[in-house]
């Protein structure tokens, strides 16, 4: 009996976010006939690509007990540099690589401030956010860079009918899933976020792992920068303001625990899609855009409350089951 109870609990816990997503799909398609069309769904996914990629970066950082408030600004900086390099050289590859390079450098500086000077991630990345935004504006003198030519292929092109941003999203999802589930680094990140001192005492190279996770975040932010600028067909030094919050929201709604040590790739993907679908259906049904903001905020609050409640319930039940089990085992050994 207790095993089935445990199992049921676990299944519910594991898949509840997907059940929410499916329910949302059903409700949305009932509300508006246009929702479940191929065009609309592809459109949703394309719009979600940048946000979800950023959300993965935030997720792996939150799992490790940190976060990145500089994602939006670094995205803008690496995006405008990428765009202007493309305009100067005409090389898509060089433009793509410079975006990643710039974002990685910014993130390694973040990691350096955090590991070597013990700066709280909140403050360190907040500082980086201001610096990166300033650098982007300085470099472009505050002007948007227009007429990107073939650069738009990243955000608007497709391969075999699949939009390129969606291909990026799928590949990155697979890689992040693999990283968290099937690598030693993944295990280390969960351990560091779960209890950093214990991770150190277990022989994990915590500082190195923090550099690595920020580097991965940098790669993700750089790619997001290219996709963003190419989708809007302009180098916007003032673009993507607040995108780190979108990423954080998706990760949290997807079950990533802000106290660290807990979170999954699929959960974050679902979280991102829940918010994306919500945005989409509110647009389709003509909900006022200010009301949309209020609804989104309410959803974050609900997700966090739900997360905390289910966690406290689960632990207390498990302790009791375990005590009982121990008793039975004791009886058996007697």
């Amino acid at each position, binding site marked *: *009996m*207790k*095993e089935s*109870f*445990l199992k049921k609990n*676990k299944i519910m816990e594991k898949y509840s976010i997907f059940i929410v997503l499916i329910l949302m799909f059903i409700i949305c398609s009932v509300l508006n006939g246009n929702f479940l069309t191929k065009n609309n769904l592809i459109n949703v996914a394309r719009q979600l690509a940048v946000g979800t990629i950023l959300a993965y970066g935030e997720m792996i950082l939150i799992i490790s007990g940190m976060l990145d408030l500089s994602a939006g600004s670094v995205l803008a900086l690496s995006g405008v540099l990428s765009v202007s390099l493309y305009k100067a050289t005409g090389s898509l590859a060089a433009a793509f690589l410079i975006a990643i390079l710039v974002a990685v450098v910014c993130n390694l500086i973040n990691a350096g401030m955090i590991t070597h000077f013990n700066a709280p991630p909140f403050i360190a990345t907040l500082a980086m956010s201001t610096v990166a935004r300033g650098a982007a504006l300085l470099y472009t003198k505050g002007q948007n860079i227009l007429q990107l030519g073939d650069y738009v292929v990243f955000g608007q092109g497709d391969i075999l009918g699949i939009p390129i941003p969606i291909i990026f999203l799928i590949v990155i999802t697979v890689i992040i899933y693999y990283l968290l*589930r*099937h*690598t*030693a680094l*993944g*295990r*280390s990140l*969960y*351990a560091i976020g*779960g*209890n950093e*001192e*214990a*991770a*150190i*005492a*277990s*022989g*994990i*190279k915590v500082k190195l792992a923090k550099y690595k996770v920020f580097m991965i975040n940098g790669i993700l932010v750089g790619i997001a920068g290219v996709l963003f600028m190419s989708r809007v067909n302009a180098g916007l030094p003032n673009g993507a303001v607040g995108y780190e919050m979108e990423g954080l929201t998706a990760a949290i709604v997807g079950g990533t*625990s802000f*106290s*660290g*040590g*807990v979170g999954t790739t699929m959960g974050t993907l679902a979280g991102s899609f829940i918010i994306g679908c919500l945005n989409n259906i509110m647009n389709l049904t003509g909900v006022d855009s200010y009301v949309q903001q209020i609804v989104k905020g309410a959803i974050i609050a609900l997700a966090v409350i739900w997360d905390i409640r289910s966690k406290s319930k689960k*632990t207390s*039940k*498990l*302790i*009791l*089951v*375990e*005590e*009982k*089990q*121990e*008793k039975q*085992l*004791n*009886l058996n*050994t*007697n």
Partner: protein
Amino acid sequence: MSQEIKLRVSNIEKSFPGVKALNKIDFVVRKGTVHALCGENGAGKSTLMKIINGIYKPDAGQIFIDEKPVKIQNPIQAASYGIAMIAQELNYVPEMSVEENLFLGRLPVNRFGKVDWKKLRRDTLKFLQDEGLPYEPDQKLKTLTVSDIQMLEIIKAVSNNASIIVMDEPTSSITQREVEKLFEKIAMLKEKGVSIIYISHKLDEVFHIADDITVFRDGTVVDSRSAKDFTMDEVIALMVGRKITNVYPKEECPIGETILEVENLYSKGIFKDITFHVKKGEIVGFAGLVGAGRTEVMRSLFGLDPITSGKVKIHGEEIKIQSVHDSIANKMVMLSEDRRRYGIIPVRSVMENASISSLKKFFYGGHWHAKQEKEMVSRYFQKMSVKTPSLETTIQSLSGGNQQKVLLAKWMILEPDILILDEPTRGVDVGAKFEIYKLMTEMAKQGKSVIMVSSELPELIGMCDRIYVMNKGRITGELQRDEFTQEKIMKYAT
């Protein structure tokens, strides 16, 4: 001693989904006496205490105070009935002052709601003077020792007119001398007619201090009578439900060549001139009072804290230990004294906790070998008799003893040559203690070396081949097995 009954617990039952936690619990606590509760972890003591303190509601049964039936709905109500709880993990605000902590939640205010700091200072000074505590009211609590904070908690309870004080493992992190101070305080409280419910795994203390003993096992009371009518062996047998014939499963095994040599280890302001060695097949103990620097030496040796100077040799070769990674590479591992802080990763599964130090064993060729991990962890869990509902259960939901065994399994997977155990049996029950001793013996028989830091002299004397004694950051004595006595150790330790 009074025969008057202060607290009567009658027929208390409590079930949780699928679990009967307490079954028909009956016992009485007399006025002005110390009533000890003994039992292994999970026997139901803490569930019962939570019911008495109003945290849980019983399914059936009745609690009487002064023979009047009472309903206790929450801890505030419990306090109004004169029930106070001194938890094992003390609750206090380290950054606040002594006076603020003492009156936390009931600061004296004037009629405008402003805190009356003068009255607060006066009342606090009176308390500190009455109790003979040499502290300033405005001193931050983090500057006090654990034992003094505990004493403050007790004073706080008494100042709240508590007549029943529950103490959960009060001596688990204080020194021998402080224990005596605590016992003096308890004697004074008894004289004032306060009843104490005393929960402890340390049976020698229980027998020293208790007037009555109630033994719990598997959610029932197996026996409850005057302490005079019990022997220690009887209580142990009742607790575990079987006879443990030998408390310390020590076996003599051949001692080989020296494996670890530590020369003149020095850490500025913490310890000095630390020179010792450990041989193959040897169990070496480190005795001393809390604060003698034993834990600090081990932490530095293991690479958690830096050293100022000194040499460490393993197998005769000098090695540089700058991080835990270095000592693991040299097959030296350490179980920390503070399980929650340096041991477990609470939100992760028992399996992940067990494999976290051997990631390289399971991650090679570019991917994770989940099956190997599962097999290896299960094997060591079986060896250590870890009791867990599943490998995916989060470690925070296991009992202290089982958490400790998971952490030991984590190190065993690495097949270490040198195992450092810092207070390995603190806060674990009799059964788990025995498993840990057995593991130590097993290691020694395999020709490995064990270093055990412990504040419990009987276990050091029972398990070790050699004991170093530390005092004030230095090694002050070294004793061979045939010279072990508590008196000799204490002489070097003070």
